[in-house]
Each structure stands twice: as C-alpha cells, then as structure tokens.
C-alpha cells in the first residue's frame, strides 16, 4: 500500500504539471493537443543539455526555452495564419516525435535512449520508514508542484490577467469589445502552458531514472489535457484529477515491480487510458446536466 501511494504521487507529478499548464490554453479557448509534443521535446532537450553540460539548471532552462519557442510557433500559426488548433497540435506532437528521434541519432549517435549523468535533486532522499518513505522518491519538482498549482489558482482566479484569459476563451467577441488584446492574451496563456509542459517533461526524464527514451511521454500529454477537462478547468480540481490518473498509472508500476500477473500486463497498462475515457464521459454528462438546469432556471424566470 505504501508503495502504491508513493508511486501514485510520483506518477501524478508530471500529469499535474502538464494538466495545470493545459488549463491556461484551454481557458483561452485553445484545445491544446500539442502538450504531448512539448513534453517530449522538453524531456529530450533537458536530457541532451544535461548530458553535454552536466548542469541541471541549464537543462531545465533549455527545456523551458524550447517549449516556449514551440508554443510561440503554435500561437503564430493559430492567431496569425488561422490554422486549426487540433491539426496543428497533432502536427507539433508528430514533429516532436520525429525531431527527438532524429536529433538523438544525428547529435548523439544514439538510437532509442540517452542517459543523463545528473538528475533532479530529491530533498529528503533516503528515508526508509514511516511517512517520509512515501515521499523520499519525490524530486524537487514534485515538492514544488503543489505551490505551482496554488500559484496557478491565484493567477487564474485572483488576477486581471487570469480573468482576461478566461474572458477570451469564454466569449471572444465580448472580450474584444471590452478592449482586451486577444492575441496577446492567448500568447501569454500558451506560454504558461509551455512552462507546465516543459516542467512535466523535465520531471519525466530527470525526476526518476535520469534518462530519455523515445516516446517517453507515452500519451501523458493527452491524459493531462483530459485531466484539465475532467477537473472542469479548475486548477485544484485538475490537480486532483491528475492524482486520480496517477493512481491508475501506479497500478501498472506496482504490479510490474511485484510481478503480479493474474491478468496479462497489457491489460493493466490499458487502465489509465480507459479511465481517461470514462472521466471525459462523466465530465461531459455533468456539463450537459448543468447546462440543462441553467436553461430550466432561465425558463422559469420568464414572465
């Protein structure tokens, strides 16, 4: 059980980081399917830089920069060339899949994986018993995640900046009439998303095994987007959803470590994806019902 909790916490860190990042884009009205690609590109950049410089700080900074540059391209294509968000997002992800494999081969002469000599520090590493053992595997990013979630909450719900993002996504025409410069707000929102995705990618690559392998994200970027939707676009609820999906992921980890094989392994690895489908469906039902109630209330007020 302790193992399961520890594994859940670790699995949910990248999902929470990327999921809370996704909130900004989705609230600004962009269905961001590029998160998977941003995470992959950041993970690769971080490991590549760490491999060459052995500096963890440079690695994190480089990942942030790459993610921001890719997000700016995404924004430019959407806002200035009116491209379709979904196709561009999937294109960005494919470009990252190809680009990371390509550069892995061309720059480092490796196929499949690249190891990093350094990893993210773990503040209380080595505690073996009691409550501390649950979190001893958590990297520094894991410890920062709750703070980042809280900061996102304050940013989105308590500042003019956050309210502008939501306004742009909810009623674009009204936001423009109120004098909000939509394009800039969307850029800012996507840069916030890029930070979340980049940190999630860094955590995936350097938080545990300190290695990059092709396809390391394994659909987590898409699951993070689903977590944002399941969390009804609220930062705290999204973080909770990330922990929920993290638990689904932890089932796979724990059963593998203990070589429990009462069901074939592929079926266990399916669980996170099936749960995501269920979660998206449930949140759709909740949303429709809330809408219906609102309509009924409006009807009741009519004279």
């Amino acid at each position: 059980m302790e193992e399961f909790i520890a594994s859940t916490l670790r699995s949910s860190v990248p999902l929470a980081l990327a999921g809370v990042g996704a909130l900004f884009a989705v609230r600004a009205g962009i269905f961001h399917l590029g998160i998977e690609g941003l995470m992959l590109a950041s993970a690769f950049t971080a490991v590549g830089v760490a491999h060459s410089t052995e500096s963890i700080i440079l690695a994190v900074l480089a990942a942030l920069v790459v993610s921001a540059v890719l997000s700016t391209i995404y924004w430019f294509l959407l806002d200035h060339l009116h491209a379709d968000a979904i196709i561009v997002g999937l294109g960005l992800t494919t470009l990252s899949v190809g680009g990371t494999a390509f550069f892995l081969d061309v720059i480092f002469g490796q196929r499949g994986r690249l190891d990093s000599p350094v990893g993210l520090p773990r503040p209380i590493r080595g505690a073996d018993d009691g409550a501390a053992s649950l979190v001893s595997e958590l990297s520094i990013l894991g410890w920062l995640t709750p703070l980042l979630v809280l900061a996102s909450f304050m940013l989105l719900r308590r500042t003019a900046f956050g309210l502008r993002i939501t306004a742009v996504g909810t009623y674009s025409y009204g936001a423009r009439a109120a004098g909000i410069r939509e394009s800039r707000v969307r850029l800012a929102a996507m840069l916030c998303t890029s930070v979340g995705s980049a940190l999630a990618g860094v955590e995936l690559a350097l938080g545990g095994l300190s290695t990059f392998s092709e396809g390391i994200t394994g659909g987590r970027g898409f699951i993070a987007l689903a977590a944002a939707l399941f969390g009804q676009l609220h930062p705290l609820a999204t973080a909770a959803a990330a922990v929920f999906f993290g638990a689904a992921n932890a089932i796979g980890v724990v059963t593998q470590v203990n070589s429990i094989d009462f069901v074939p392994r592929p079926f266990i690895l399916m669980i996170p994806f099936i749960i995501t489908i269920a979660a998206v469906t449930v949140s759709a039902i909740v949303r429709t019902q809330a809408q219906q109630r609102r309509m009924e209330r409006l009807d009741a007020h009519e004279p």
Partner: protein
Amino acid sequence: MNQHLARLVARLAPVVIAFALAFALFVATGFSVGSVASGIVEGVLTGRGATTNTIRWSIPLILIGLGIAVSLRAGEFNIGAQGQFLVGSLAAIWVALRWDLPKAWLIFFAIVLAVVAGALWSAIAGVLKVYLGADEVITTLMLNFVAIQLVQWVATGPLRDPFSSGDAASTERLDPSLRVQGSGEYSLELILLTIAVIVAVWSLLERSRLGIAVQLIGANPKAAAWQGLSIRGTRLYTYLIAGGLAGLTGATEVFGPAGRVVTGSTPTLGFTALVVATVGSLAVVGTVTAGLFFGGLQAAILYLPIVSDLPPSALRIIEGLVALLITAQLATALRRRRSTASPLPDEAPEGQQPIEDGVQHVLSRRTQDEAG
C-alpha cells in the same frame, strides 16, 4: 479555371514550404541535399521496386484517409484511425490463423470481421460523443493507446510467434498461400479493392442522401436539424464508415504486404492518413492524390537509409511540418497585411461567417463551438 489554379496553389504551398523547411534541417545537420533529393526520386519512381512500394503504402493511406475525410466532413474529429486499423488487423489475423475454412471463405470472413471490429471500435467513441457529449478527440486518441496494448497482448500471448526475435513482438506469420501479395510485388486484388472503395465513397458522398446529410451537418448542424435530418444518426454513421474503412485496411495489410501483426515499430498510418485527408481538402479526388503522394514519400523514406543514412524519423518530421502548415491560411495573412489595419474585429459574430473553403470551415468550427 483561374480560381481552381489558385486553390491548387493554396493547397500545395504549405506542402512545399514544409518540404523546404525539412530539407533545410537535413542540410543543416550534415546530409547532402543532392543525395537526399535523388534518394527520394529513386525511392518514389525510378529505384528498384519503387513504384511497387509507392502503391504498397498508398493503398492503406487512401483507404484510411477516405474514412477520415467522411468523418471530418461531418465535423467529427475522429482521430482514432490507428486504433481502428490495429483492431481490424487483429480480427483479420485471428480469423486467418485460427479458423479452419477454405481459402475464399477465410478471406471473406476475415474481411467482414475486420470491418466490423474497426467500425465497433470507432463506434465506442461515436456513441460516447453523440449521445453523451464526450469529446471525441480525447476518446479516439485514448482508444488508440488501448488498441496498442491489445496488439501487445495478442502478439505476446494468444497468437505469439514463438520464433520471433528482436525488440518487437510479432504474431505468427500468415501461411504464404493465403496472402494476396508478398513483399516487393504488386497485388491486383488490392488495387481493384481500393478502386472499388474509392468509387463507393465518392458515390456515397456525392450521390447519396447520406452524403448530402454529412455535408449539411458539417457545414451547419442547426440548419440541418431544421431540415429534419437526424444529426445523431448521421454522425454515428460517419464513425462506422471511418472505423470500417480503417478496419478493412487492417485486413488488407494482414493478407497483403505485412502478413502478420507486429508491435511497436508499425509506422503510424493513422496519423499520416489524417494528414492525407486534410491535404486532400476532404474531397475524394484530393484524398486519393494526397494518398499517392504520401505513399510515395513513405516508400522513399524507407528507401533513403540505403542511399544517404537519413534516419527513418525524418518522415515524422516532414509529416509534422506538413500538418503544422496545412490548415494555415497563408494567403489570408498576406492579404491582411496589405490592407490597412481595421479597428473592427476580423470575424463576424457567430452565425454570420461567410462559408468559404469547405475544409477550413469544418475545421474552424470546433474552436467556435468551444467558445460558444
């Protein structure tokens, strides 16, 4: 005619730019542009077995792409073709390996079962979307990952090839006498089947009630509902068609060039087919043309390592760049820059947008839905 030409240029420009960017990257990383370019030409047309390979890859892309085009036309972002294809190929290989029937019946049942499996897999997302409102983009993507795990299970469990080696697990191979195409040869049957499907989809979209309904619903669901069309029914049909075609492709791959189902290293046909459908403007002729083009590209990229050391991931880079640019309205951006900046918003409020290009309209509708 001039207008058609302009539209053609607008379609081709993003592809050309994407290629230029990819080439710039390859040159910057030390590949010689001449050897890559001549390698592509050889791989598509002139090299040994080049045309065969081009056709080999075009067939699945066209079959899956047509299904995706039908879906997108109805405004449904069914991007689960990869999963539907995998489930279809599992159904086909199961029938082929485990059923004991005369060859003709075996192939018949394998195809039917593959189509049904693909259609049902797609219908999961369809029902969740149409009746419960679950976002099909997420559900179809997730179903892809589930299908990948299913293949993993089948290839390492029930149908495992005990003699397979290397990283990728594989199912047993099909008996050669059952296959309609070995590697490196044509299959007339598959080409005829593809032509039949092209004609069928064309008449479905252009000459049938359902086709008109799909078009109308994609363009304006409210107006379509007022016309008395069943929105839910029509949308569900598009899921069945897209899934069925992807499932059929699973069968053609199993009985044709692949001959087995392999985990891991399968090229991601589903995504390439999505690019094919969008490059082809969701039209039948366009999708077929784009399918031939990307089929050739796939053949060339698989051929390239032989001549210039370019890693196979180069194909993903080109595809990704095309996908980034294909929906961008380059012309509009240029036009806007020339006209004086207007303080008025550049979009009319919802319901007043002029309908221009069919694809752009369908594709852009989603963001408005989300906003509204």
